[in-house]
């Protein structure tokens, strides 16, 4: 199996199309696996030359919190992977300002640079997508 493309042989039919893919992350890390498995999808998505955006809202903003130390719960800390996304040319990371405010968080609390959008701006972004994958 081709590891980079997650089991897909690239052909013209796939590689010719560019769609807007939005990954919506609304869940906190570690309490459930959705955050980690969402990230695994995004890493594969990078191989497909699509127009990829990531949204972090509600408890999803906690995925990007600095200072995660998971040794005591014996789970892998996957937060450094968000820093690696740039290397995969995944650079459009959006965070909902209202979600940050409700949790007393600011951009300085996050491990990666993000674009902060209001709910209304996020709604516009969501509306403009071709494919929305929610986790």
């Amino acid at each position, binding site marked *: *199996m081709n590891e980079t493309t997650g*089991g897909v042989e690239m052909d013209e039919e*796939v590689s010719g*199309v560019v769609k807007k*893919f939005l990954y919506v992350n609304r869940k906190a890390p570690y309490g459930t696996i959705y955050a980690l498995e969402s990230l695994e999808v995004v890493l594969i998505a990078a191989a497909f030359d*699509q127009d990829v955006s990531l949204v972090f809202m509600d408890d999803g903003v906690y995925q990007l919190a600095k200072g995660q130390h998971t040794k005591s719960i014996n789970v892998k800390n996957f937060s450094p992977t968000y820093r690696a996304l740039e290397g995969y040319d995944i650079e459009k990371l959006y965070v909902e300002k209202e979600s940050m405010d409700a949790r007393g968080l600011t951009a300085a609390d996050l491990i990666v640079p993000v674009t902060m959008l209001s709910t209304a701006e996020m709604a516009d972004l969501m509306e403009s997508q071709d494919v*929305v994958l929610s986790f």
Partner: protein
Amino acid sequence: MKFGIMVNEGPYTHEASDTAYLFAKAALEKGHQIHRIFFYHDGVNNSTKLTEPPQDDRNIVARWTKLAADYKIDLVVCVAAALRRGIRDENLAEGFRISGLGQLIESGIQADRLVVFGD
């Protein structure tokens, strides 16, 4: 129209796999195509052939197998999610195949719509 479907929860525990199945069936009966059904997260548990629900209950796994046979639907189980949860070729029900996450992205590209069924 060509639909892609993503199923993110296990059978019985969440209604997601029921809704996904009934949606897929309705789409097919209306003459639409299903490009692929992709099972992710606990959704991979839809594919175990060892399931044995009570006699008076629906058999969710068998129902997917039949749908795949009747309409030639591609049922793909994510390999990484499956290994974590104990789904392998040896307990995989007929009609399913195990492959990578690229199959999901490809479905997003090739299908006209991708619909997510989750918790």
